[in-house]
């Protein structure tokens, strides 16, 4: 629901309402005789969205409204709501803005770039930004950071907010419906495109490409709004013209004025609001109180409408956070910066044996990333300690400890006595996600339905499907298991099983079910939460968390060709054989 607030626990995105308050009256004698009032765009952070439309599409801030902007008679409002994707595939294909010099405008937008809350151009096939329809005008497409497709045109007859383009299974019937229910003047744009005019803003309808349009509700453009003088009268007229009300006329909770609003559904699952004169949106201030614990952040979406986690991240700042809470820090919430620096100096940097100081500092971004002040990774159990092991888990740990001694005492009989990490096979899961002493890059590349997570150490690429797929047969086990991903709001949730058990994390077994949650909590922060559920080993599941930082500018993930240059194996094993000989000679 557009203006309904989510439960506190969701605490996620925000809705943007783009209000089109058109002056002047329609002359048509139709049911409601409505004017465009607003377009409602689902967004996340109100202030960011207002700024975006103000800076890039020349809208104006509105006094006393921190949640709205005026786009040439247009208002932008924001209310928290989970975002369920962009406009494409819904019954509203895009909205249009008109500029006198489209080339200059597009060049300006291109120069902004698509990073962060930038502007994403939708280029044409040949890579060009602008095309010209003969007899019509020049046009090009962009996306706002929240997935709204926006057409920019060069139509001197109407500058600024120009049109709303519906996507309909039957454009002609759709326009007829709008005219009979909401008024508007039937006209042809430049004598070329059938449409309705509301004042000088156009409502156009194109053929929907495939199937039935998805509902706009919850999508980037949640609804389009129309304004009438008296909603009571208008509602009964609209009803008699065939409109069905999703919500009867009411004064919404927390409305800024006493003007009423109703929701109806137009053709092609397009949600429409009809508001009374004086309607000024819904006050969302109280939302900030209810979500005080989690600053709302709206990650940009990919053009195919998935949260955009892409970029080069590093775990450098998180290196040094112990998995378990140190016993002398039981009541400490966070380290001080000095304590964190001291921990890194004593732990992380101390552990990189024999490397030059300068190299270590550079590698770990010592000067660039202040080390994390997080006390420990484990957040559940709340003690910050691993849960109790089962008897079987205890036995397995003893076996593992004996194996480790072979390595530390240099008695390895062959490669199998060394860990998969030393052998350059893998660090396993969740081990490979853990911050390491160097080569800490994590690159994420997304395509529709897949997220590729590439970890620099020791060069592994996990390909995570984000749509449901059949699981692999239980006997088809691998080191990194069978991942199944899905989006929960803006969080990528990855559930993995089918492990071969030839690697372990803190004693985990082949039965482990790993659940990982990747959430972009700011432009430059990616929270990584992992839950290990392995009843064979631990008496309860446990969960850890740490954060990756974006480092697109200076970090380049390199090829960590581990096995290809693994002199360590040759040296460890030949050293072990030399010790064998010494021991044999000593015992002679």
């Amino acid at each position, binding site marked *: 629901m557009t203006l309904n607030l989510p439960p506190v626990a969701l605490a996620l995105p925000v809705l943007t309402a783009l209000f089109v308050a058109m002056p002047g009256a329609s002359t048509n004698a139709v049911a409601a005789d409505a004017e465009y009032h607003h377009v409602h765009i689902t967004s996340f952070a109100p202030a960011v969205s207002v700024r975006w439309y103000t800076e890039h599409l020349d809208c104006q801030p509105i006094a006393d409204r921190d949640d709205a902007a005026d786009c040439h008679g247009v208002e932008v409002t924001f209310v928290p709501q989970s975002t369920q994707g962009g406009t494409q595939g819904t019954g509203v294909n895009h909205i249009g803005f008109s500029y006198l010099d489209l080339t200059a405008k597009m060049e300006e937008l291109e120069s902004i770039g698509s990073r962060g809350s930038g502007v994403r151009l939708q280029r044409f096939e040949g890579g060009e930004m602008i095309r010209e329809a003969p007899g019509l005008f020049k046009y090009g497409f962009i996306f706002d950071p929240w997935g709204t497709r926006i057409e920019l045109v060069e139509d001197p007859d109407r500058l600024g907010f120009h049109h709303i383009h519906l996507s309909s299974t039957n454009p002609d019937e759709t326009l007829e419906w709008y005219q009979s229910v909401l008024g508007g003047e039937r006209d042809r744009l430049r004598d070329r495109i059938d449409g309705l005019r509301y004042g000088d803003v156009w409502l156009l309808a194109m053929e929907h490409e495939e199937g039935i349009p998805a509902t706009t509700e919850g999508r980037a453009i949640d609804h389009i709004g129309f304004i009438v003088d008296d909603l009571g009268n208008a509602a009964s007229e609209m009803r008699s013209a065939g409109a069905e009300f999703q919500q009867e006329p009411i004064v919404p909770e927390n409305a800024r004025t006493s003007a009423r609003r109703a929701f109806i559904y137009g053709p092609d699952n397009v949600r429409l609001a009809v508001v009374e004169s004086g309607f000024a949106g819904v006050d969302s201030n109280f939302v900030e109180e209810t979500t005080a614990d989690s600053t709302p952040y709206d990650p940009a979406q990919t053009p195919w409408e998935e949260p955009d986690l892409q970029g080069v991240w590093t775990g450098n700042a998180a290196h040094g956070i112990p998995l378990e809470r140190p016993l002398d820090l039981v009541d400490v919430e966070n380290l001080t910066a000095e304590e964190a620096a001291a921990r890194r100096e004593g732990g992380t940097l101390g552990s990189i044996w024999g490397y030059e100081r300068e190299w270590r500092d550079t590698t770990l971004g010592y000067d660039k990333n202040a080390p994390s002040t997080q006390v420990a990774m484990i957040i559940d159990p709340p003690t910050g300690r691993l849960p109790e092991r089962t008897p079987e888990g205890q036995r397995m740990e003893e076996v593992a400890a004996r194996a480790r001694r072979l390595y530390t005492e240099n008695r390895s009989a062959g490669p199998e006595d060394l860990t998969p990490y030393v052998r350059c096979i893998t660090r396993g899961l969740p081990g490979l996600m853990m911050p390491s002493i160097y080569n800490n890059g994590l690159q994420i590349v997304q395509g529709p339905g897949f997220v590729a997570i590439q970890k620099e150490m020791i060069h592994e690429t996990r390909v995570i499907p984000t749509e449901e797929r059949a699981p692999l047969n239980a006997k088809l086990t691998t080191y990194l298991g069978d991942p199944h991903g899905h989006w929960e709001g803006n969080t990528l949730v990855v559930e993995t099983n089918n492990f071969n058990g030839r690697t372990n994390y803190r004693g985990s077994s082949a039965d482990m079910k790993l659940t990982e949650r990747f959430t972009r909590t700011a432009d430059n922060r990616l929270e990584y939460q992992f839950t290990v559920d392995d009843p064979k080993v631990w008496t309860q599941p446990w969960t850890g968390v740490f954060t990756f930082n974006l480092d697109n500018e200076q970090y380049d993930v390199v090829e960590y060709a581990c*096995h290809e240059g693994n002199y360590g194996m040759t040296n460890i094993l030949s050293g072990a054989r030399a010790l064998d000989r010494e021991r044999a000679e000593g015992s002679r």
Partner: protein
Amino acid sequence: MKHLCVPVVTAFLFASAAISAQSDEVPRAWDNHPDLNGIWQAIGTAHWNLEDHPAGPGHPDLGAIGAIPPGQGVVEEGDIPYTPEARQQQQDNFENRMTNDPEAKCFMPGVPRATYLPYPFQIIQGDKKIQIAYGVAEASRTIHMDKDNPEPPPIDSWMGRSHGRWDGDTLVVDVQGFTGEAWFDRAGNHASASLRVEERYTPMGRNAIMYEATLTDDTVFTRPWAIRMPLYRRLEDNARVIEFKCVEYSEDLLYGHLRRVPTR
């Protein structure tokens, strides 16, 4: 009967039209470029030898399984234009392939070899970069679509540094910055660290891509030369690139002599 027949036939025609439309059309990404997302694999004997080759003996312990199957080459315009020294090197490589072929050692295959090894690979095509995850040796590449082309490679690597751009419907990838240690096939075909590869991925419809790679390396070849082969979409239900971490199967070859009881 007549009344019954007509709708049935009509429905059938609709169905087959839908299928053929699906098969023939190049899928389009959000930006209208071809959508190469999917799991692909080469078929043929290029991984045995890029050049035309008759059948030959292989690893005797494996019987006929170890034999080299015959195959038509994928090199445009005949043989690889090696310098005489480089041709000699290829023959030496072939003689010593049981121990020296990087594939036997589970080393990353490099480019273009990764493309036509007998394993599937997955293309993840995004809006900024394209990732290719190959089905062996955990090899993968990032094709930078968003960087200066070409940007100097940060380090030499097995898989090289890839920069891509669209030329109409063709994805063109410039790859350089190689270690020079990769081979092209099990026949010991090779290049040096000066190798530069220009790959061209051109969709041939929904389920095939024509793959072309032009290889330039003045220190090894007398002129640039090219290979050309189709890549096929894996169409099985639930097709996957299954992880094949082959390191452990190379360890006897590499470290067997260092076991407590040597195996080599």
